[in-house]
């Protein structure tokens, strides 16, 4: 499987989806107007990864901002990960939030309550 590496922009996050390392990273900002278009490639990649996932997959989500149209796309990503987890792969979602950013912590907790995959909330210094 190809690794997806996308540089971040002022409106879209940096992406590193690496099937060989079993590492999935989304970092930066996710505030595009066309979120569905941006995330389509990532959802398709996860569908392909689901056919032969590694025994362990690490997911790192470190977002500064995300808009509500991205929030649904991020949930779609998590639902794909939940399916991979149900099929027996060990998945942990590391949800990073900046110190004092209670809104971002709460956003992670919202996903945690919907998705049946272990979340780890990690505070980072600004």
């Amino acid at each position: 499987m190809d690794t997806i590496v996308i540089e971040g922009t002022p409106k879209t996050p940096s992406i590193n989806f690496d099937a060989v390392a079993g590492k999935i990273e989304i970092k930066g900002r996710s505030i595009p107007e066309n979120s569905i278009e941006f995330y389509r490639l990532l959802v398709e990649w996860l569908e392909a990864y689901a056919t032969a996932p590694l025994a362990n997959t690490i997911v790192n989500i470190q977002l500064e901002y995300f808009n509500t149209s991205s929030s649904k796309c991020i949930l779609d990503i998590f639902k794909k990960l939940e399916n991979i987890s149900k099929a027996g792969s060990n998945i942990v979602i590391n949800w990073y939030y900046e110190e004092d950013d209670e809104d971002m912590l709460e956003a992670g907790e919202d996903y945690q309550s919907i998705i049946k995959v272990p979340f780890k909330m990690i505070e980072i210094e600004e």
Partner: protein
Amino acid sequence: MTETINNIEVENWYNTLIDGNNLLSYRGEVTSDIITSLIEKLEIYFNTNMNLKELRKITIHVFVESIQNIFHHALKISDKNIKFGIFAMNYFENSINIITGNYILKDRIQILTDRINQINSLSKDELKALYKLILNNDEFLEKEGGGLGLIDVSRKTGTKLEYQFLNINKNIYFYILKIKII
């Protein structure tokens, strides 16, 4: 849209928004590039006014939601066929007021009124529950967000949304939304 638009009231209203407390304003076509450049301006403003550091994150978040709301939902008007929007952000007595305006068809008034009144009537926990319900239900989310933006803004600011509709002609109104960040 071929109907005549009487913009005098909208212009007069816009002029009242811009005073000494204004930190960002815009009127015109709302495009993806315009939104990007306004975000950049806002970030420069917050980076040079460190006394507002605590309001930076929430203000940029609310700005993005409210201007993208215009981008996704504004009625295209006149022969120019553009998504016209008005945006103003004022800082006054330790709070930031965001005001947005865009054209809508008359039949949207009842939907918007009901939705905003519902959001304003809910507690923090009820807003959180509604947000998660809509987020996790595809039927609500067919058109870029499905009302999630207003709920999100209300959750984050903890303040009540204010709204107003200016009558432009028989079928068209100008929808004004005011959001307070404290």
